[in-house]
């Protein structure tokens, strides 16, 4: 184990997999000579050369489309989105092509394609650069949507994505890039998809989250513990496939649930999870499932407004208390 950052964990996953399998290559805007806007790909061009580390034009549809053409022939392309906001330009390639070809071809080809990059609110990046897309991609069958919250998951799950046969939307969170954590050194230590994890046990309320919001939830849980409220915190880790069994088990114990997401409330992941809880363990609920979400507005630029638009620890604490009828 080494203590490394989320950024380094991603870098190592890419580098180790390129080392391991000559079919793995990476392409994106300014990932080679420029070494990447978040420096995830620093040093890769020198190590693996321009055939495997491809600087592309600013052309997201072109990047993803060509990667699909490569993946169908057995290469394992990784496409870096400078931010996932730009992937909307490639939505047709991702949703109409990558997610569908296996199905409409009757299973004749694999689609070992990874599209990765940061998303979510930053600091004063405003409306076009602050969005979260997990529920957008989570809506489409044919995709895998990963939302790692820790350096270890970032590395292990990215390896899963690269070694797999399916198109993976790998949603990193820029605010986590500097976060440190223990990460296995074993290049074959991988984390499978579709396995949620209880990261904190508690008997009073279940907090469900993922990615950066997991850390918000854990901080809220620590504060709540000071008030005698023991929250169980679950990290979903992948949004599609969504492993809700641990959530149901937890709700059977706590009878209350709070779902925390950064994105907008309408039609979001939290709504999907809340509905699933209601469908599956309705009779276990002693309170409505609470949702903590970003405000339903485009992200503003001014720092004070921006801070009002995103969820904070305090929101989670209040939601927990509502669920416990203690507000």
């Amino acid at each position, binding site marked *: 184990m080494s203590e490394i950052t989320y950024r380094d964990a991603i870098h190592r996953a890419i580098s180790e997999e390129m080392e391991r399998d000559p079919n793995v290559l990476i392409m994106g805007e300014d990932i080679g000579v420029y070494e990447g806007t978040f420096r995830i790909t620093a040093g890769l061009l020198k190590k693996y050369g321009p055939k495997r580390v491809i600087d592309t034009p600013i052309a997201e549809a072109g990047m993803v489309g060509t990667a699909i053409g490569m993946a169908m022939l057995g290469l394992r392309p990784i496409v870096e989105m400078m931010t996932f906001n730009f992937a909307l330009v490639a939505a047709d390639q991702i949703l109409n092509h990558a997610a569908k070809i296996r199905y409409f071809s009757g299973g004749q080809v694999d689609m070992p394609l990874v599209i990765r990059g940061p998303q979510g609110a930053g600091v004063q990046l405003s409306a076009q650069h602050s969005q979260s897309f997990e529920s957008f991609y989570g809506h489409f069958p044919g995709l895998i949507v990963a939302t790692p919250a820790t350096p270890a998951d970032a590395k292990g799950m990215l390896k899963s994505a690269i070694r797999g046969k399916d198109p993976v939307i790998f949603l990193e969170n820029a605010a986590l890039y500097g976060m440190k954590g223990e990460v296995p050194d074993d290049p074959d230590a991988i984390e499978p998809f579709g396995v949620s994890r209880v990261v904190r046990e508690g008997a009073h309320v279940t907090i469900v989250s993922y990615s950066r919001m997991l850390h918000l939830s854990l901080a809220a849980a620590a504060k709540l513990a000071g008030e005698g409220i023991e929250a169980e915190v679950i990290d979903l880790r992948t949004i599609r496939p969504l492993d809700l069994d641990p959530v149901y088990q937890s709700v059977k114990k706590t009878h209350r649930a709070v779902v925390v997401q950064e994105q907008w409330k309408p039609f979001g992941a939290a709504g999907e999870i809340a509905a699933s809880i209601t469908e599956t363990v309705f*009779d276990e609920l*002693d*309170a409505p499932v609470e949702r903590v979400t970003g405000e339903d507005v485009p992200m503003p630029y001014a720092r004070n407004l921006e801070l009002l638009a995103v969820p904070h620890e305090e929101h989670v604490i209040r939601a927990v208390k509502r669920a416990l009828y203690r507000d």
Partner: protein
Amino acid sequence: MGEIIMPKMGDAMTEGRVVRWHKKSGDKVTKGEAVLEIETDKVNLDLEAEEDGLLDNIAFEAGAMAPVGAVLATVGLPHVKQADKPAAAAVTAPAAAAPVPAKKASGEFNVHDKKTAEQEIPSAIVGRRRSSPLARKIAAQKGVDLALIAGSGPGGRIVASDVESARAGSRVTPSSSSLTSVAALPVLETKVVPLSAMRRTIAKRLAESIGPIPHFFLTVDLDVTKLVQLREQVIEITGVKASLNDFVVRASALALRSHPLVNASFGEEAITLHGEVHVGVAVATPEGLLTPVIRNADRKSVVEIATEVRALAEKARARKLMPDEYQGSSFTISNLGMYGIEEFTAIINPPNAAILAIGAAMQKPVVEAGQVVVRDRMKVTMSCDHRVVDGAVGADFLRTFRQYVEQPLRLMI
């Protein structure tokens, strides 16, 4: 303001006679002072004032029969007009059992104190009771009747802890509601349950009703979207958790004013059109159905009705209802909405000429101006005594009733 009521002196006593008034209206009385003499089958006794004040609102003159619980007079400020004059219900009083001294003749029926009622029964008794899914599951497992539990959650929602701490007294027969699994069901035993006096009366009266009374039925489907919204506003503004049924009580009372043939009773010689509107509200109790009466419901606000209904219903469940609290209705409302019943027909409560059966308010898709929209709808079925109420008369009444329900601001005027 205190009230002097006809006290119930024995189990079978339903009414007493006012023998003489020792004081007259406007006289000053002091606590403990004899105010009047009453006579029951077994005993004559003086009723004393429970507090100092001026005697007023003498409702029964010397010689008159008064049902148990009826307010005979008030003690308090002189200018308050007592409107609560019970209708003369033709009840034959059977012989009273051993006489019991009147312990309290004043204050006992002061149910208009909003705060007291709120504290005692925080959630609506009629209409849908809020409860969490877990609370319902535990209640089913424990055999606890949710109707008897006060909810501590938002809006009076019954939550798991309320059920878990529920008194043993709130248990109903576990076998009847244990829903966990087939294996967990206890063996049922065959029992012969002797008819209680109450069950006997229910049986007799309902059979009397459906037998000689030529019933017919009219159903309307009402848009209660605005009513539902109004109810939420009323709750927010007043803090009184009025149920939809409380609004329905007021709506029917107001409608009855315009349709005297519906607020009527059939007699062998004549039809009586009642001058006052007293609406009976059917309440399910563990022992059976009771219909406490909201007297002069047309003169009471929704909030007053709500408070009164709740207090009476609680009394009904506790078997503390006095006869004048369940007798003398001129019209009755039965609501099974809280059981999820969408539509049903009720049997007329004689000597009423009609009864309204109120179903659950449910969200339904309806077509409005070519668009499918979601509205709260509620079905209401009116059972009519055809000897008094003809089809057109019933339909007219329902039309008025619909106006009140669908344009509920009229209820607040």
